[in-house]
C-alpha cells in the first residue's frame, strides 16, 4: 500500500496500490469498514498484476475539496521529539508492559 506516490515510485516495489488519502490513513477511513474492504479488495488485485513495478491508482478520494492537501504542503514541522525511550499510547500500557517483563 502507499499514501505517498512519489516516494513509492522511487522505491519501485514489485507491486503497489496508491491511496490518495492523508498520511495515517493508508488503508482507509476510521469506522468505515465497507470502504476499508473496498480499498483492500482493490489493492489485493495487484497480486495478479503481470507487469513488475505496477502501481495501482485506487479510485477513492478523501472528500470533495481535498483541502487536506493544502494543509499538508503548508505545514512547517509538527513532528514530536525523537525520544529514545518507549512512547506509550497511554500510561496503563506502560504498566502492563512493565508487569509483563517482571
Amino acid at each position: 500500500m502507499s499514501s505517498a506516490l512519489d516516494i513509492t515510485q522511487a522505491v519501485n516495489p514489485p507491486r503497489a496500490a496508491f491511496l490518495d488519502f492523508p498520511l495515517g490513513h493508508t488503508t482507509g477511513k476510521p469506522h468505515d469498514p465497507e470502504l476499508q474492504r473496498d480499498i483492500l479488495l482493490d489493492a489485493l488485485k495487484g497480486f495478479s498484476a503481470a507487469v513488475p513495478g505496477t502501481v495501482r491508482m485506487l479510485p477513492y478520494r478523501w472528500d470533495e475539496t481535498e483541502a487536506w492537501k493544502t494543509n499538508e504542503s503548508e505545514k512547517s514541522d509538527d513532528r514530536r521529539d525523537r525520544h529514545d525511550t518507549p512512547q506509550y499510547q497511554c500510561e496503563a500500557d506502560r504498566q502492563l508492559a512493565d508487569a509483563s517483563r517482571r
Partner: protein
Amino acid sequence: MKPRISKPPSAPLQYIDIIDERYGKLGYAPYRWALHTEPPPWVPLSKPLSECRLGLIASGGIYAAGQVAFHWKDDPSYRMIPMDIDSADLRTSHFAYDQTDARADINVVFPIDTLRRLTQEGVVGALTAHAFTFMGGIYSARRVREDMGPRITDALLEEGADAVLLVPV
C-alpha cells in the same frame, strides 16, 4: 434536476519535495531517498490469492497492550502481533503522523479486521499466525534493508507466507 458538478481529483502530493523543503528550512542536509532504478525483484503468485497464506507488515508503530512500545530514535525492533488478537487491544506509537484516527480505528493503518473478513469470505486463503509491525521513522534505509527486513522475511516464511501485504505510513 441539476447535474452535480464534481471537482476533478487533484494531483497526489509530491512528498519528496515537501519534505526536502521542510527539512531544508530547518537546517538539515538533504535526505538520501531510497531510489531503485533497476527492475524490482519479481515472483509471480503460483496460485490464486484465495489459496494463499497472506502475511502483513505495517510500519505505523502498532503494538499490542502488554508489549513494550516503540521509541522514536531509529527504533530497530519489531513486534509480532497475533492475528487472532482483539483489535481493541492494539495501540500506536509513532512521531511522524497524526495517530488520532489510527487510535480510533486501528484498521486505517493495520487492516486486521478487514483481512480477517476477507479471509472469512474466501478472498484470501489464510493469514499467517502473526503480523509484523515496526516504527517506520528510521533514518537509515540500509539498516532496515540489511537487518530488520531479512529478519521479518525469515519469520514470515517460517509461518508459511505465500505473499505479504506491506502497509506503510
